[in-house]
């Protein structure tokens, strides 16, 4: 590892200003950035350590939901009573992610801003559309774990399995740049390579994610998060399906978001419409399964993700129909 300097800002404004002038990467939990530095995929002179900034941890109840500080660890989020009670899909997805150690270190802000796990992107010496070059090694290469949707420019998958759940809850991502704050819907926050191959999220230079807001109006007891992967202990999902049904008790307000199959969480309003059209029975499962592969462009080794998604959505429907009201 190449030694670097560590900048320790005392406030978000300071961090933001410093990073904007210097282009140094932010570090929070460190689990993502340090690995990339060790691989010489990035060689920063300075990193900006956000860990000492006050007021960015913890979960607080607000009038209209909860607000999760960006530096809150994954484990703290997953085990928080307000999350397990009101946003169980979020808790479930976190407990499926990574390892106990990583969940104790990684922050939720870092999780949604982490770089994709593409093994070309994380190996020194593969220049591609994502890191200043052009093209995509995976499209004609080893792509078993890569995207089947939106993969024409770059076939990475969104690595955060929290991200699809945030999209499903219509979470708002609170961002600060300098002294300015803004909120972006999660659905817009995660972007695809055709929008900008160099970025995975809508952060401008100097901007920091400071919190995540989960609106109370989208809570539901009818939810499901299903994923499949090769190994149950520490592995990345090959595909996931997040489903929220009758959000806020509003009949027909559903969300279906696919994860690990595209560069950004993939909301499927076509599937939501189908869900709206009938009851949660086998016929519904069939209809969803017929449709779920629409728009996919599987590569040479990842066509299996389509039948895998069919399986996961079937299980999702059964999960929801099996959950008791209230």
């Amino acid at each position: 590892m190449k030694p670097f300097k560590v900048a320790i800002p005392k406030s978000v404004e300071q961090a933001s200003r410093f990073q904007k002038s210097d282009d140094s990467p932010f570090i929070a939990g460190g689990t993502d950035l340090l690995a990339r530095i060790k691989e010489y995929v990035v060689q920063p002179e300075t990193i900006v350590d956000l860990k000492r900034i006050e007021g960015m941890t913890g979960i607080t109840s607000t009038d209209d939901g909860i607000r999760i500080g960006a530096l809150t660890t994954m484990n703290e989020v997953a085990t928080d009573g307000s999350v397990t009670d009101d946003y169980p899909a979020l808790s479930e997805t976190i407990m499926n992610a990574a390892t106990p150690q990583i969940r104790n270190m990684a922050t939720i802000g870092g999780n949604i801003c982490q770089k994709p796990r593409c093994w070309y992107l994380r190996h020194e010496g593969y220049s591609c559309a994502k890191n200043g070059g052009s093209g995509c090694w995976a499209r004609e290469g080893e792509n078993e774990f890569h995207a089947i949707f939106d993969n024409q420019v770059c076939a990475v998958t969104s690595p955060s399995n929290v991200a699809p759940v945030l999209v499903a809850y219509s979470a708002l991502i609170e961002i600060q740049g300098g002294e300015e704050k803004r909120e972006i819907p999660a659905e817009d926050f995660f972007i695809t390579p055709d929008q900008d191959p160099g970025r995975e999220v809508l952060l401008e230079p100097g901007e920091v994610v400071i919190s995540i807001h989960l609106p109370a109006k989208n809570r539901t007891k009818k939810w499901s998060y299903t994923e499949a992967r090769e190994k149950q202990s520490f592995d990345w999902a090959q595909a996931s399906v997040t489903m929220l049904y009758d959000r806020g008790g509003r009949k027909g307000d559903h969300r279906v978001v696919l994860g690990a199959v595209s560069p950004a969480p993939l909301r499927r309003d076509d599937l939501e419409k189908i869900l709206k059209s009938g009851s949660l029975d086998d016929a519904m499962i069939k209809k969803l399964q017929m449709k779920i592969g629409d728009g996919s462009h599987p590569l040479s080794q990842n066509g299996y993700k389509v039948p895998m998604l069919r399986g996961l959505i079937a299980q999702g429907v059964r999960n929801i129909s099996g959950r008791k009201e209230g």
Partner: protein
Amino acid sequence: MDKKPEEPPEGVSRRHFLKGAGAAAAAVSVAQLPSEVQGSNGTEDEPTILGPGPVPIQLRINGVDGQTEAAPSTTLLDLLRDHQGLTGAKRVCDRGSCGACTVLLDGRTVDSCSMLAIDAVGSEITTVEGIGTPENLSDLQQAFIEKDALQCGFCTPGMVVSCTALLKENPSPDREQIRRGISGNICRCGTYQNIIEAVEHVSRKGGK
């Protein structure tokens, strides 16, 4: 598509100019982290800049306060092993995949390879050496021995730390909970079942 082998992308090259005073002040301030930094929240214009050379780092390890000099880019694992002589935690994957470097940070398990030592300033660090000694084994260590929950022994310190944390959080875990508790620790020799039995043994005896 560009398929020719090529040089790695250039690292970030824009230099951040350090004011001499800032750098000097930094070396002093880190010893007091985090209070110094938090205490001056918003009052200074510039972030504290540490490194890239060695800075004093004060850590509380196994109940003892100590100070050491290390580059701020030093991981907690390397600081423990190379500067403190605490070689129980092992460097195996060095990427947070295997858990062989697990230590407790304020009672919670972390992969010490994947965090900076300076981020542990102000926290209570417990390594396997702080859990028990050959003369004074913890109940769990004793159970590991009795249940043969180790083979080559390279993952064992990390496993002991993870299981200690697991039992502290949940003194009577079921098998599934134990499996989950050690799911961040890989054992290449294949001792999982014996480890599960060791944890169950301690749990039944009400030890820790």
